[in-house]
């Protein structure tokens, strides 16, 4: 139990505590320490120091014992995380293994997690688009979830703030549904991507193909060099951790920056059991953790608490933070905690062949991954029989002509052929899903993890809206590919469980009304205003853009508010 020695309590008291060290936790720590606060960052996993703890980052492909393939024993022991594209021999050490951190799947959910300092910021696919007015207006306009308590103009300056520091590559495309940001030079589209961009521009109203926007230093500014980062080397082995800091991660950017201030203490191996609520003061007073090495419970205290444990774990912590005042979880007067969880629908793809463009190929690797088609369905008005819409990845590629038929001398020579084959194009859908009360997480009190914390029970699934949207994606992309003259168009769908998109959001949603939401417009718990939630849990709806950039912006904005309110004595 907690040691109540007064001196020790003083040592365990900070101005602010940040729970989690991933994308949003890193930003909370940076912004808080920038403002002079003494901050404790709690991380349930081990420490991962930039460069030093990237064991595979400089390995050549042939240096991996199994050339990247994981041993079958590891694959079979990890059926869930094994479905993630990046779970291979070069990055498996940054993923949570299934059996170490169990959870309950009342409905199938592929929960992909990274428990270490830096969290999933080491592993993300680094696509960074702003959300637009259409996204923040969405629930109110289309009548689902609850109205966002903020609009685009509230967050726009904070997008700029985080973009300048993180380093986002992109073009100013002038598209209302995908607002421009503070960009470093974009990675260019290749010949076929450029052709399709022009084709769509000429032939479709309000549809666009742009160069994907990504968190890579295509050309670093001074602020990036000051962080100790360098230009992206276009290696595209980012999931191993980048020794150049070429892409944005907490490890390369926000955490070392916060440490440099002298105001940050990082405590790894600390599973947060609950947030402590002080009934007399009417606010949270600290955080109770279990040290994963000693299994001992300890308490830390602060006047501001940021919860950035990643969407579903943030839900778990709040649900498990029970008190006389909050018997159903911290701040949960409304009963909506854990509900209205949503995600992104990534379950359709389409590929095709392209004739021509033989005078062009590409050389090297594109860190941005190619093109991006912003949402074009139901943007300005409701025009289909499903709600909301989808963005699309789009890329074209051309490889060498390698036949895998045959054997012997000619076959061997053919494997090294530098003769180019035809161009191919591919796309995948990224659909918005609708938050619903029936998609929820809750605690399973009958089952506990190794640290005595109840397991999370996840009930999240697709619905008819998702099926209709998927069908529309296939139809629209088939039509666009056909009109562009692409051949042998092959759509495909899969039945991947929610979760594999790694964009789970909600459960602690923002809203204007404390009766129907958990957080106010500053990401403060309505009912416990010194606790802030700024990770994916806070999302009222999911948009179809990648969410990480929005977490960063909301976090920086919330810290600014927290510190200013704290100075006024309101927090």
């Amino acid at each position, binding site marked *: 139990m907690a040691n109540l020695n007064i001196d020790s309590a003083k040592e365990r008291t900070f101005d602010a505590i940040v729970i989690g060290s991933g994308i949003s936790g890193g930003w909370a720590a940076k912004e808080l320490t920038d403002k002079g606060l003494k901050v404790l960052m709690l991380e349930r996993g081990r420490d991962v120091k930039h460069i030093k703890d990237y064991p595979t980052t400089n390995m050549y492909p042939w*240096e991996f014992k199994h050339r990247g393939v994981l041993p079958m024993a590891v694959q079979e022991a990890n059926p869930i995380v094994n479905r993630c594209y990046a779970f291979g021999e070069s990055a498996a050490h940054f993923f949570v293994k299934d059996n170490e951190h169990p959870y309950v799947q009342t409905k199938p959910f592929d929960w992909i997690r990274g428990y270490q300092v830096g969290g999933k910021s080491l592993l993300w696919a680094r696509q960074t688009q702003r959300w637009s007015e259409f996204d923040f207006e969405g629930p109110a306009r289309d009548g689902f979830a609850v109205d966002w308590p903020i609009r685009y103009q509230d967050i726009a300056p904070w997008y700029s703030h985080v973009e300048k520091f993180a380093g986002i590559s992109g073009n100013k495309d002038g598209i209302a549904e995908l607002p421009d940001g503070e960009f470093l030079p974009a990675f260019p589209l290749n010949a076929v991507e450029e052709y399709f961009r022009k084709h769509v521009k000429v032939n479709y109203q309000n549809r666009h193909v742009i160069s994907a926007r990504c968190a890579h230093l295509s050309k670093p500014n001074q602020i990036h060099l000051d962080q100790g980062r360098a230009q992206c080397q276009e290696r595209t082995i980012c999931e191993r951790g980048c020794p150049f800091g070429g892409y944005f991660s907490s490890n390369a950017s926000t955490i070392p920056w916060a440490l440099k201030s002298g105001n940050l203490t990082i405590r790894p191996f600390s599973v947060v059991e609950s947030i402590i609520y002080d009934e007399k003061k009417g606010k949270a007073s600290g955080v109770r953790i279990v040290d994963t090495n000693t299994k001992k419970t300890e308490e830390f205290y602060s006047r501001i608490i940021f919860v950035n444990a990643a969407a579903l774990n943030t839900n778990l912590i709040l649900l498990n933070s029970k008190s006389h005042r909050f018997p159903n979880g911290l701040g949960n007067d409304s009963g909506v905690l854990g509900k209205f969880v949503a995600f992104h629908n990534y379950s359709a793809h389409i590929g095709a062949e392209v004739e021509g463009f033989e005078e062009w190929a590409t050389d090297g690797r594109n860190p941005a991954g190619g093109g991006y088609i912003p949402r074009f369905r139901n943007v300005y008005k409701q025009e289909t029989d499903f709600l909301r819409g989808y963005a699309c990845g789009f890329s074209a590629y051309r490889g060498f002509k390698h036949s895998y038929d045959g054997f*012997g001398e000619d076959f061997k020579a053919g494997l090294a052929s530098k003769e180019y084959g035809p161009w191919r194009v591919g796309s995948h859908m990224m659909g918005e899903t609708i938050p619903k009360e029936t998609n929820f997480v809750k605690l399973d009190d009958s089952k506990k993890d190794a640290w005595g914390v109840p397991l999370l029970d996840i009930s999240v699934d697709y619905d008819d809206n998702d099926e209709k949207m998927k069908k529309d994606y296939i139809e629209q992309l088939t039509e666009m590919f056909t009109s562009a003259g692409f051949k042998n168009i092959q759509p495909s769908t899969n039945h991947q469980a929610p979760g594999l998109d790694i964009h789970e959001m909600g459960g602690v949603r923002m809203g204007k009304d404390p009766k129907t939401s958990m957080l106010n417009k500053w990401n403060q718990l309505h009912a416990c205003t010194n606790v802030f939630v700024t990770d994916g849990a806070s999302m009222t709806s999911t948009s179809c853009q990648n969410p990480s950039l929005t977490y960063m912006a909301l976090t920086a904005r919330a810290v600014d508010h927290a510190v200013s309110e704290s100075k006024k004595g309101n927090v």
Partner: protein
Amino acid sequence: MDRRTAIRNLALVLSSAAILPACTKDNPTAHFKHFDVTGDQEALIADLAETIIPKTTTPGAKDLNLDKFVWLMLDDCTKKEDQQAFFKGMDKFNDLTKKMYSKSFADCSKTEKAAILATFEKKPGAKPTGRNPSGKKDDKPEKKDELQAFYGTVKGLTVFGYTQSQYFMTKEIVYELVPGRYNAHFPVKNNMKA
């Protein structure tokens, strides 16, 4: 030599030591985690791999230890049932060569070996187990008969090992770890064989 290289080289020595002593023909000579292998079986895989990737003016499968890579991947990265099917397929392969030429694959001439392999090539091509060379995970590997699966596995892993070998990635193509580059518009002047 840095520490990591030293440890890695040590690991390679240790792992290959397990499969080196091929003394007698029929007794198990190599012990893996999941199975034992006879000298004949080792020789068969080496010959098959060499037939697929022969020594020319450049190194072949035996020079590059691709047969050892096949065994390593079969042992470490292959499902138990696929390992069992592999050995059944291997027996059937031996039956086939006996049937075609009344001798073992090792004793066949180059032309005879080629004729045997040609019978497999009429059927769908080979993929390595677990991941194909493009790096994608195979959700549902095709169900093939054991004989075809055996050939497919040997061929797939041999090709995978070859195209991922240090030799291939430094001499045949040039894999650049750092710096990489991206030229979106790379002109193809003369699309001919290099």
